[in-house]
Structure formats: C-alpha cells, structure tokens
C-alpha cells in the first residue's frame, strides 16, 4: 500500500463571526491516493466546499476563519506554509481547483489565451509569452477543444458553458498538479455536457495519475467517476468506503436516506422516502450524533457522538447501529 498523495487529519475550520462560531468543518480525516478519485458527498452546509477551500487555504478574508489539523500533501503539511509559499509552490503546480460556475471562474475582459497561458508564466514553466501561448494551445487541445490556436484569441463569453468548464480545466491542469479538486463541476451544466466533462476528467486521470477530489451533492454522478466516497453531514464525515460498498451496502441512515430520497430513472410515481426536518445550525450543534434529530432509527445512545466502526474493506461508518453488530 503506497503512501497516500493527500492525507488530511482532524481538519477543523471554524469561522469566528460576530454572532458565534460556525463550525463549518469539524474534525475530518481522509486520504487520497495517486490516480484515485475520492467523492465528497453532502448537502449545502455539510462543509464540503469549506474542506476544499481549507486545503488550498482560500478562506474568505473577512470570515474570521481558523484552520486546525494537518493537511499533508506528499508528506508536507500545507497548513504550515505561508501564503507566499502556497501561491508559488502549491496552488497550480501541486494542487488545483475547478469550481462550480464557469461563468465566474473566467475573467470576462481577458482573452482565453491570456488566462490559460497565465499559470505557465507565473510558475515559470516557460520563459516567453509566445511559448506560454503555445503551451496554452496544447492545454486546450488536451481538453478537446477544437481549433485551439484560433480559440485562444476568443473571450469567455464566446464559449458555451461546457466549453468554459473545459477551459477552466485546462488552466487547472496546466502545471500538471498532483491533486485536482473539482467542486460541483457539472452542477451548472446540462446532462449531456456533464457526461463529457466527467469523461474528460477520467481521461486526464488516466494520463497523468492525478488524484481527484470530486465534491458534489449528487450521488448519481459520483458513481461514474469515483473510486471511494466520503459522505459529509454538518461538518463531519459520517461514512467512507468504496463506491460499490456505499451503494450496495450503505450503513449510515443518512446515506441510506439520501439514496432513497432521490428519484432514479426506472422508479415511477411512488412516494419518496423524505428525510424530515432540516440540517442543523452550524453554530449550535448537538453534542451527540448530528443526524440523530432527523434519524428514523434513532436510539438513546445517539446522544453520545458515535465512534468510527469498520464494517468491511475500508468501509468506515460513524453510527451506533453499525457498532452494535
């Protein structure tokens, strides 16, 4: 078993606001290996986006955010690095991110060529602007944009949503990073384009063995791309395992509920098993299991936070029900 590319241990991201402390990420640990895709699944407020931003240390500046724990990339703890070191050595060459909305990821007043050639120049992978543009054209070719040299001169508004996401992907992989974080990359896109972007990420991973963290709320797209899944709820990971195990044998009631609560093709006009209630307020979390207030299988012992139980081949769940068996 080789060493993991990324090892996150007890990551905590707390936002200190005037009204209180929002425990956006409250002690999570996971690993990503080379050439592997980890899917982080959760709803809004689960902490999945904050996790990505914490790895890259891109928290909003007036958030009053504090990050604790360790984030080791190839053995080096990123949280120990200064902002300059992060900007020069890590963001781009080692870790890159694709976000949800391709419309706001690209600057509308610069040409695509300017933007895609940027990372090459900034991280000194080339010396001249001409070389940078040539590298940018290659980048566009890698993400299968036709006539890349011509399209370098175009502006973002001249591309459709799916194309823009490809451009953003080209920028992200420009410096051949070791880890790629994709935060809901296809939520804003049509389903036929979604498939293409997923296929693109798969092919990039095959070529370069990059590790991918795919963050999403959609359990269906996770299936096609991910090897392992971590399910997050209210700032904590409540279940992790291989994709097949999570789908065929979900252990945590929240995971089970998620799978039953979404309509799947092939199902028809039956009542969906709705999850009652609302996700908890992150400033006022219960001390026990955070899903307990909504859990159909809740027991009295759930007032104490459940420890991790190993239920199979690297299939770990935080639930007293699993601990019992």
């Amino acid at each position, binding site marked *: 078993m080789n060493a993991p590319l990324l090892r996150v241990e007890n990551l905590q991201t707390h936002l200190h*606001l*005037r*009204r209180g402390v929002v425990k956006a990420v409250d002690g999570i640990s996971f690993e990503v290996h080379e050439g592997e895709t980890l899917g982080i699944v959760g709803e809004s407020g689960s902490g999945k986006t904050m996790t990505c931003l914490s790895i890259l240390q891109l928290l909003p500046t007036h958030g009053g955010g504090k990050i604790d724990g360790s984030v080791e990339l190839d053995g080096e703890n990123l949280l120990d690095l200064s902002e300059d070191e992060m900007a020069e050595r890590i963001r781009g060459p080692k870790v890159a991110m694709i976000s949800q909305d391709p419309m706001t990821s690209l600057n509308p007043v610069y040409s695509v060529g300017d933007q895609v050639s940027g990372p090459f120049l900034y991280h000194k992978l080339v010396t001249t602007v001409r070389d940078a543009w040539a590298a940018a054209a290659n980048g566009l070719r890698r993400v299968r944009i036709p006539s890349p040299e011509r399209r370098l001169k175009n502006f973002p508004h001249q591309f459709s949503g799916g194309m823009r996401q490809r451009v953003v992907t080209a920028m992200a992989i420009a410096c051949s990073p070791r880890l790629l974080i994709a935060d809901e990359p296809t939520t804003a896109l049509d389903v036929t384009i979604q498939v293409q972007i997923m296929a693109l990420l798969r092919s990039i991973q095959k070529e370069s063995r990059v590790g991918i963290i795919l963050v999403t709320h959609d359990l269906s797209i996770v299936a096609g791309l991910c090897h392992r899944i971590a399910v997050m709820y209210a700032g904590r990971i409540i279940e992790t395992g291989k994709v097949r195990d999570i789908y065929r044998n979900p252990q945590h009631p929240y995971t089970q509920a998620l799978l039953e609560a979404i309509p799947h093709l092939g199902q028809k006009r039956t009542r969906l098993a*709705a999850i*009652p*209630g*609302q996700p908890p307020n992150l400033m006022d979390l219960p001390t026990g299991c955070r899903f307990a207030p909504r859990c159909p299988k809740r027991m009295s012992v759930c007032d104490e936070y459940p420890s991790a139980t190993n239920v199979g081949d690297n299939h770990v769940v935080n639930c007293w029900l699993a601990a019992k068996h």
Partner: protein
Amino acid sequence: MSVTSAPAPVPAVATSGVSRFTSRLRLKGAPWVPLFILAMVLVAAIGGETLTPHDPNGLNLGAAFKPPFWQAGGTSEYLLGTDNLGRDVLSRIIAGARVSAIVSLYAIVFSGAIGTMLGIIAGYFGGIIDTIIVRIAEIKMAIPGLALALIFSATMDPGLSTVIIVIVLTYWTWYARIIRSEVLSLRERDYVAFAKVAGCGSLTIFFRHLLPNIFNTLVVLMTLQVGQVILFEASLSFLGLGIQAPDTSWGLMLADARQYITYAWWGITMPGIAIMLTCLSSNLTGDWLRDLLDPKRRQL
C-alpha cells in the same frame, strides 16, 4: 386536514418589521459625530433667530472685524468674530443653517419625487417611454448646472425659490438614472412575475413590490444629496445667483468675506467649515445607511 407528514419547524423569534429595523440600528456602529452635527444643523434651522446670540443682520460698524474669542483682540461676546459690517459670524452661521436646511428639504423632496417617478416609469414600461425619458435626461445632463442657474437668474428674480427650482431641474436626472436601473433589475424578479400571474395590476405592482424595494436606495440617495445641494446653493449664492441680502446663507457669507481673507480669515473660514462639516456628515451618514440597509449584509 394536513396532507403531508412532515411539518417543518419554524423559527422561534417572530419579529415585526419596525422592531427588526431598530434592533439593527442599535447593533451597528453608528457614526455618532456626523449624526450629532446633522442634528445640530437641524436644531439651528428650526430655532433660527431665537438661538442666535446677536441679530444676524445687526450692523455695528464699531465692532467690525473682531477676531474669534481665542485670538488676541477677540471677546466672548462674539465667539467666532464679526464680519466687515460688524455682524456676528456665529449668529449668521446659525441663521444660514435655516437656508441650507430649507433648500435641502425642498430640493430633495421635489427632485427626488420627480426623478423617482420618471425613473420608475422609464424602468418599468421600457420601450419608447423609456427611450424618451432617457433622452430628455441626457440632454439635460449636457447642460451644466451653473449655466442653467445663469439662464434662470436672468429671467427670474434671484432668491430662494430660484435656487430650489434650479436644483430640482439639475438633480432629478441623478435620481432618475439610478432608480431606473434598480427598477430594471427588480422588474425581472420572480415575485414581480408572480404578481402578474396572480392578476395584479401595474399600479398594485408599483406600490407593493417596486417602491418598497427601491426605498433603501432612495433613502441613501437622499442623504447623499444633502451635501451636494448645500454646496450647489453655496456656489450659486457665492456667484450672486442665489440668495440675496438681507437673507443669510453660508454661500453668501463666503462671497462677502472673500476680499477680506488676508486680514480677517474667520469671515470666510467659519462658514466654509460649516459647509464642509455638514457635507461630510451627510455623506458619512449616507454611507452608514447604505451599509445598514443593504440586504446582502444581513446574512453575517
């Protein structure tokens, strides 16, 4: 009678609109000094002659050019000194506050009302009406305010009413443009679409949906305009196109004292400071109000 099985929990604190507004007022860091200054101007405007230590128009050549009380030669009788005709500077400033306040009030109310109405009509109806209103505004904006003032003074008697008319004609475009773009974006909101789907008429939509949501912007615009209006009136009066003697205005004080600046600096500086403080205070208050009323800031 309930059809669903999952009644949703509802927030425990039920607050009315007014109490939410005042609780927010208390929480934020209000700019106390600017608010105090504006309050003082208001008090001066209302109190007028009853508050002045001396008659603002009382000539007393024997007491001319007395410096402020902290300088050699000054007395505590004339705290801020006297001008070339022996009139107490402090009293004239207090009296002048009334002019500033009246001009601000009328100018803001009228230009605000006209500008807002035209802005809403242009933004909501669009099409040819919008084009016409925007063209008129653009033509008007091509004419400098002072030039307009000159034209008006030539045809009408200079004085308070003329100043107000000129200001209204100059500033309505400012409101119209900003309110128009607010309305353009509000018009596309789903709740406006729903009101149409529900069968509401245009007038109902104006008053129920557009106006209240423009209110925030309007309040901020009005506060910011106070400073501009006072400066404009001062400029007009300074040029002789506005307030005329025996009425007092800060601008007029500037004009009268200009030639004596080298040996009676207080004559021009004191009204200048009054103008500056009032403008600054209204701008800071406007900034604070804008941040306070901005719904996006409600989240954190």
